[in-house]
């Protein structure tokens, strides 16, 4: 009886699967958000388009990053398609910030016929998918997966963002060069690849430069609501600058709690801090004077940035963050390489791969997130970090 019932259920679910399967076989008919921007033909699949696929967390806790990268990439694709030359088609799949789901998403894209890959948005999934990229010989450039393991040992995987070690050492260098502080406290998230990676290189570089770290405290995913212990430690040891290699949600709580305990050190963040001004319910006065090292500034006045920000705002009703800019730059970098190498959509993924790898290791690219970016054979990008400070609720370039 019970078993019969279980069997019946299984049959029902299989029926549901079949129903869904037929739908997913036609991904091109589903409207993609933002695909109608600047696109006269209404955003349907473009004939002879090069298929670009990417995975990112579109749902769940890290969704804000995945969605931003996807939206940024979509705007770039729409702009390029409107030019009329090389045509692109973009497909972003949800990976829920999980390695297993990312590989599934990657395989879905492979079934779809992906020719060029945007890798994964976040680090852990990107480490898993980059191996697949390497084995399948599909070229990948990830917008924002910053772990070293993403590119290590893979000739055809590139990063648009700084690798974690570069951020840590660049931050230490910047603090010393600009004489921002003498006694530094660090609070980092020790169950997070991104945060730990930056912390470790920051410590190494600080030791080289003679920067004194007086307090090092940690938190985890489960304990990121209360920072009184960490702040108390920094305060009692007289730290005048707190280095925060983390995303902006915990950072916003740190600012709040430091204020309530009458502690006003300088704060220095990294690119994960970008986005704090658009955080809902956050009192932006708290972020006054916060410094951060980020490659992208939404308030920059050059024509390209203002154009991008305006388009992003009208399409998605928010100010683009660095992830969106990274996504945008990735598509444009692919576009320039594709044009230079004369890639056409009828080439196979591995042929495109060889052409693009040759281009990326030799050319230099100007984008929203930096000028004269170059890539080494290890896949890591070389570009100048921009120091920003928050003043009157807006980012301001520091140099």
């Amino acid at each position: 009886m019970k078993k019969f019932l279980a069997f019946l259920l299984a049959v029902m679910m299989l029926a549901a699967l079949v129903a869904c399967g037929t739908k997913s076989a036609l991904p091109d008919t589903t409207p993609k958000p933002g695909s109608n921007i600047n696109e006269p033909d209404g955003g349907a699949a473009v004939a002879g388009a090069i298929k670009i696929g990417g995975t990112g967390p579109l749902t769940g806790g890290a969704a804000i990053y995945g969605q931003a990268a996807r939206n940024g990439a979509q705007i770039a694709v729409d702009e390029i398609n409107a030019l009329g030359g090389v045509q692109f088609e973009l497909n972003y799949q949800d990976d829920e910030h999980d390695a297993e789901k990312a590989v599934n998403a990657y395989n879905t894209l492979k079934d779809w016929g992906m020719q060029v890959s945007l890798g994964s948005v976040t680090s852990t999934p990107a480490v898993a998918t980059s191996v697949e990229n390497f084995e399948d010989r599909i070229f990948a450039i990830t917008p924002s997966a910053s772990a070293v393991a993403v590119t290590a040992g893979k000739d055809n995987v590139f990063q648009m963002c700084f690798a974690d070690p570069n951020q840590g050492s660049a931050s230490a260098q910047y603090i010393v060069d600009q004489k921002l502080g003498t006694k530094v406290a660090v609070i980092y998230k020790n169950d997070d690849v991104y945060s730990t990676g930056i912390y470790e290189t920051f410590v190494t570089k600080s030791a080289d430069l003679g920067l004194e770290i007086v307090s090092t405290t940690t938190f985890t995913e489960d304990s990121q609501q209360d920072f009184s212990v960490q702040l108390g430690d920094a305060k009692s040891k007289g730290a005048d600058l707190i280095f925060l290699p983390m995303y902006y949600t915990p950072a916003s709580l740190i600012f709040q709690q430091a204020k309530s305990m009458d502690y006003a050190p300088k704060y220095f963040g990294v690119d994960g801090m970008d986005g704090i001004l658009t955080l809902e319910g956050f009192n932006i006065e708290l972020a006054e004077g916060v410094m951060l090292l980020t490659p992208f500034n939404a308030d920059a006045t050059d024509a390209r940035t203002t154009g991008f920000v305006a388009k992003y705002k009208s399409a998605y009703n928010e100010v683009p963050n660095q992830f969106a800019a990274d996504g945008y730059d990735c598509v444009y970098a692919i576009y320039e390489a594709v044009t230079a190498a004369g890639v056409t959509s009828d080439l196979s993924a591995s042929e495109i791969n060889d052409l693009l790898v040759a281009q990326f290791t030799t050319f230099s690219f100007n984008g929203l997130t930096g000028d004269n970016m170059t890539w080494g054979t290890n896949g890591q990008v070389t570009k100048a970090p921009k120091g920003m400070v928050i003043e009157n609720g807006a980012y301001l370039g520091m140099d």
Partner: protein
Amino acid sequence: MRKLQKHTVNGIFTYALVIVAFVAVQWLIRSGNISSTLRGQLVPICAYVVMAVSLNLTVGVLGELSLGHASFMSVGAFSGVVACMSLSAAIPSDPLRLVVGMAIGAVCAGAAGFLIGIPVLRLNGDYLAIVTLAFGEIIKNLINCLTVGLDSRGLRFGFLKSADALNLGEGGKVIINGPMGISGIPKLSTFTAGFILILVTLFIVMNLVNSRAGRAIMALRDNRIAAESVGIPVTKYKLMAFVTSAALAGSAGTLYAMNFSTIVATKFNFNTSILILVYVVLGGLGNIWGSVIAAVVLTILPEMLRGFNDYRMLIYAIVLIIVMLTTNNARIKSIPAWVRSKLRKGGASNG
């Protein structure tokens, strides 16, 4: 006599189900009709099937709710991968190394299960559920603090230290790097390995359930006081089921980890434990082949729902709710009996 037959039929059906599925998928692979998505999911599916069957031993057969099953998977994954990566010179054969890795994963997870089981199994019901949940989180956090490296002197362990503090010698490499987990895992897992592990798991679990020990375990589930009064040693049999379940989860963890190039401890959190519990509850408590089907279907389902884009997870949740509701609906439950009576009548008139 009838009881025995039922067990045998049930067992044959379960093995047949798994073998037919394996042959069908192999045929699909040979003929090239399989999508990359499904092909990439084969090994995780095998791992989840083993997880579901092993948890069914604790939840369905022993009758204790465990919310920390993913932590045993985690122990097995990390220890198995460390073993496989450090034995790469000693055992050149990939399948053999995978088997050794799985065995080490199973032993480590079994040992963790034993250590946890001693205090935990003195508790009952809700208390046990809460404590297993806590142990799951503890294991996750311990692995987050662990660094392991390999150099010419052998394995080096560090706790709450960065990878640099391991002082690895010339040519040394970091295997477990704290919260960053392991990256650069060689892909040793294959669908065939997963299939064999499922068969071994089914063999162990079904033989245990149908043995003298299994009957003692089920007696504990049905009425602990009565079982104790007839002289069944409670702790011994509870531990037996719990440790077996943990060890199988450990080998599943190794299989799972050796399929992806990276694993992190946070993957094996509370959510994963619940996910596996959902497989077990959906497949039916104590129903082994139900667990197999539920694990397969619920692993494939979210991927099949990709066509719904942003509404995917919402629809997955709705499907789960509908399935859970229908399993408790008396009218739907009466359908199989009705179908059977119709069939019997039809058979009688034809014959």
